[in-house]
């Protein structure tokens, strides 16, 4: 097995990014079709920012809603995968640097990954 080069690492990251973005775009597009299924509804009231209700905040709620084919839940799921994609990219970078035995960059990318995961977990009030 020849050495794990920079180019191999970059190619694997690019492939993962492409898959992640396309997958989340398909989800959001599908959710958009569900959302626009009833075009005769009155235009939504956007002048006051209400934010999403609590049923859609947790990942369990989003998955349950998506199973019911609720438009908002499917879109939220797609957005969740979109946000997860750069986080997974950092993880791929870390693994790539580990395979290249580059200790400094393993430390740097794992610090970034820890910060990202911390903000995702502790972001709720």
């Amino acid at each position, binding site marked *: 097995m020849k050495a794990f080069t920079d180019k191999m690492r970059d190619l694997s990251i690019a492939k993962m990014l492409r898959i992640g973005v396309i997958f989340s*775009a398909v989800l959001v597009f599908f959710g*958009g079709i569900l959302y626009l299924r009833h075009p005769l509804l009155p235009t939504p009231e*956007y002048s006051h920012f209400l*934010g*999403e209700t609590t049923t859609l*905040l947790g990942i369990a709620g989003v998955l349950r809603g998506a199973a019911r084919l609720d438009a*908002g839940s499917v879109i*939220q799921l797609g*957005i969740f995968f979109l946000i997860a994609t750069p986080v997974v990219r950092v993880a791929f970078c870390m693994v790539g640097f580990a395979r290249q035995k580059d200790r400094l960059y393993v430390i740097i990318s794992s610090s970034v990954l820890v910060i990202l995961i911390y*903000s995702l977990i502790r972001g709720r009030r």
Partner: protein
Amino acid sequence: MNSTEAIVSAVEAGLGIGFVPLMAKVLAMDQAMGLPFKVSTTTSNFMIGVTAAASAGIYLARGYIDAGIAMPVMLGVLAGSLLDSKLLVKVHVTTLKIVFCLVIVALGLEMIFSGMTGRI
């Protein structure tokens, strides 16, 4: 929780996720480090993407993302960036620099205006 909020807000305010730090980073890389222009724009974009991922996760967890608004925005941004990545290879650097200068002047004027009218 309050301490987490404070640190998060401090970092977000410091980095100012969005257009402004992207412009600042591009200028820094282009002028101070003398990198090729296309390299500095794409690298700045990458850096912004990773830092935005942190705050985006928080917005999602707190329900600040409205699904009905986010859906067309996301699809539009994706289509735009796919188009742009094809264009970037072919565009002349001079054209890029002229457009960049115009945008940054407009951004500066807008910031001055917001500051003067107190709309920050």
